């Protein structure tokens, strides 16, 4: 598009038949593609064929137009003046004068002016209140999940987990019984070798027979910490590669996460099923101001 050749290359008296033939050919291709598109649609549609025909139909038309423009339209550069971007000083002065003349009445009656301002401001402020309807306040909701004392751990199908059901090294996503769709309660149950477990002070009785349970919501930005590597006994978040040591209270060992995954205190009920002793003792998921 940078050519500055003669005005319309065909105007030079050269043979323009090849160019006409090329443009005509492109237009025929375009027409054929458009007809093909209609036929494809009528026959039920096929996405790759549609794409190819759309591209050909439009592309043929566009390229023909470009070649036609380059052949027949004037190309000699035209030079014109650049007017000042700004207005003339006289216009600027006149505008300011008009504005200031109109402004004069506003400078008087100062009490009314304050009242006008106050009324507009008060009304504007009152308009902000409906924003409050957009959602509930956070309150303490970020601090809790649906886990309650004695709630059985169930899998996504709602089946409770017996204490012997999981082999060592196995991992299962569990929910509190009756809340299998509760996003914020999703928890990873992992069975590890109890001998390797380094329980934190006060958590010694949270992991019956090597069953540990951690919130599945990453403490970084909340992705599901879904990848358990048994050999290194760590949990890897697939989103930003934070890694948590399962044997050491799910402490973050690499990546951007700053906090351990909250641990769910477990116990076994009289029927032999795993239950939660109580809710998580700290907020699950990513950090926030007053956590």
């Amino acid at each position: 598009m940078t050519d500055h050749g003669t005005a319309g290359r065909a105007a030079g008296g050269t043979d323009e038949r090849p160019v006409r033939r090329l443009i005509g050919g492109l237009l025929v291709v375009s027409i054929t593609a458009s007809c093909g598109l209609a036929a494809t649609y009528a026959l039920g549609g096929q996405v790759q064929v549609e794409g190819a025909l759309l591209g050909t139909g439009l592309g043929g038309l566009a390229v023909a137009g470009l070649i036609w423009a380059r052949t027949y339209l004037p190309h000699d550069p035209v030079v014109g003046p650049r007017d000042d971007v700004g207005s003339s000083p006289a216009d600027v002065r006149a505008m300011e004068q008009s504005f200031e003349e109109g402004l004069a009445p506003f400078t008087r009656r100062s009490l009314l002016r304050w009242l006008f301002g106050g009324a507009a401001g008060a009304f504007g402020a009152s308009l902000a209140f409906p924003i409050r309807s957009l959602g509930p306040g956070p309150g303490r909701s970020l601090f809790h999940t649906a886990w309650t004392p004695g709630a059985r751990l169930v899998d996504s199908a709602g089946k409770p987990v017996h204490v012997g059901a999981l082999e060592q090294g196995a991992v299962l996503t569990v929910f509190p019984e009756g809340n299998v769709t509760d996003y914020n309660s999703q928890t990873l149950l992992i069975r590890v070798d109890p001998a390797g477990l380094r329980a934190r002070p006060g958590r010694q009785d949270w992991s019956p027979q090597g069953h540990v349970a951690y919130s599945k919501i990453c403490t970084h930005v909340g992705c599901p910490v879904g990848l358990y590597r048994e050999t290194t006994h760590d949990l890897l978040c697939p989103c930003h590669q934070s890694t948590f040591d399962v044997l050491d209270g799910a402490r973050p060992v690499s990546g951007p996460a700053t906090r351990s995954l909250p641990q769910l205190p477990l116990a076994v009920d009289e029927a032999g099923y795993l239950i939660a002793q109580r809710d998580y003792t700290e907020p699950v998921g990513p950090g926030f101001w007053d956590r």
Partner: protein
Amino acid sequence: MIGRTSRWIDERIGASRFVRTALEKIFPDHWSFMIGEIALYAFVVLVLTGIYLTFFFEPSTRDVVYHGSYAPLQGQHLSAAYKSAIDLSFHVRAGLVMRQTHHWAALVFVAAIVVHLMRVFFTAAYRRPREINWIVGVTLLILAMGNGFFGYSLLDDLLSGTGVRVGYSIALSIPLVGPWLAFLFFGGRFPTDAMIPRFFVLHVMIIPAVIIAVLTVHLAILWHHKHTEFPGRGRSEQTIEGSRLWPTYAVKSVALFGLVAAVLTAMGGLIQINPIWIYGPFRSSSVTAAVTSASQPDWYVGWMDGALRIMPPWEIRLGGFTVPNPFFPGVLLPGLTFAGLYLWPFIDARLLTRDRKTHHLLERPRNAPVRTGLGVAVFVFYTLLFVAGGNDVLAGIFNVTPEAITNSFRVLIFVAPAVAYAVTWKVCRDLARSGSRPTRGTVGSTVAQTATGGFVALDDPGHGSAPVVTAGRDSP
């Protein structure tokens, strides 16, 4: 030919004078001035395909059971949003080509804006009097990125749902007001039923309307300023050189629209994008569906994702209050990025060049080594962040741990831009000194071959008017 109609219209709205100026308006010819047009035409394609998609998409988290032709989802509980996106891909004729064209157009739209911004930056087209239009343009970039993110998030598939989760967590991380802000915007604690309908109205109505308004301002200011142009023989600050709008520029521009639309529709049909049926639903009767590795967002969010990944595990905890880790890469970095972009013309004019004069002629990148060096350094910085967004993929390719890749990026992100600056500065200096490859139509001399085969320089301004034999060869 158009006499009666144009007179009829002119008698009623008096358009002839404006239309005449418009038809004769001069647009400089240079390939780099087409990039902004590509963005504009990608936006037109977005609007057209988007309107079509709204007829079939249901922005709702209502629980529905799938009974369509895609076997792996048979009998599963899905959100209406996800199901309608699947249905419009598989059951609506031409639905998939529209959806994929829409997605490709969105990627190209933001890409064209970024390349256009780089063209304007490296040629210093933002200088007085165009600072306001630079600000308007940066606003368009933010709007385009935001709308892309909302559109991508509407489908409620596993990958985009995870992206929304990240967005919510970033909102949550803002000091003091974060939890309130996140709850008001999402309508409660993540995940909510309100978010898909809200994203929908933002994506199809509010943000497009704002984009159209801001785009109109962008073009109106451009129209008033007239286009910049590169310096060259016969070019000056007082003149403009190029093709008239009518007919040459108009036809070329319409043809460019056709080309952009042709490429986008061809991509939409031939190159699969965002196959949400493979990703699976974000919500279903169970939330056990798990994101595995290699989950990357659309490209223009990639730099933020990369920043989230390589941010060291630091956060601020003070007397019971926390400034969480994602605040720094997720809020502070984009905030500084766009603040820097907004302020750049003023930083340049007041601190860097101290040049506050009006410019219509562009500056070649080599003639401004500091600006060009800074631009390349910043480009390298964001490109590295983008690449860091694939640290899991890279770890697989190089067969090392993601930790090793992350640590490398933590160093590279500071070293590479510095090196890039130094190299660029030197290259610009050397190029500017060499004087080779002058701007088209300048310096250099016209030569003519003599009867004996020698060359004679004609009208060489540097050497007076006397012809100088620069080379000679006797004819046999």
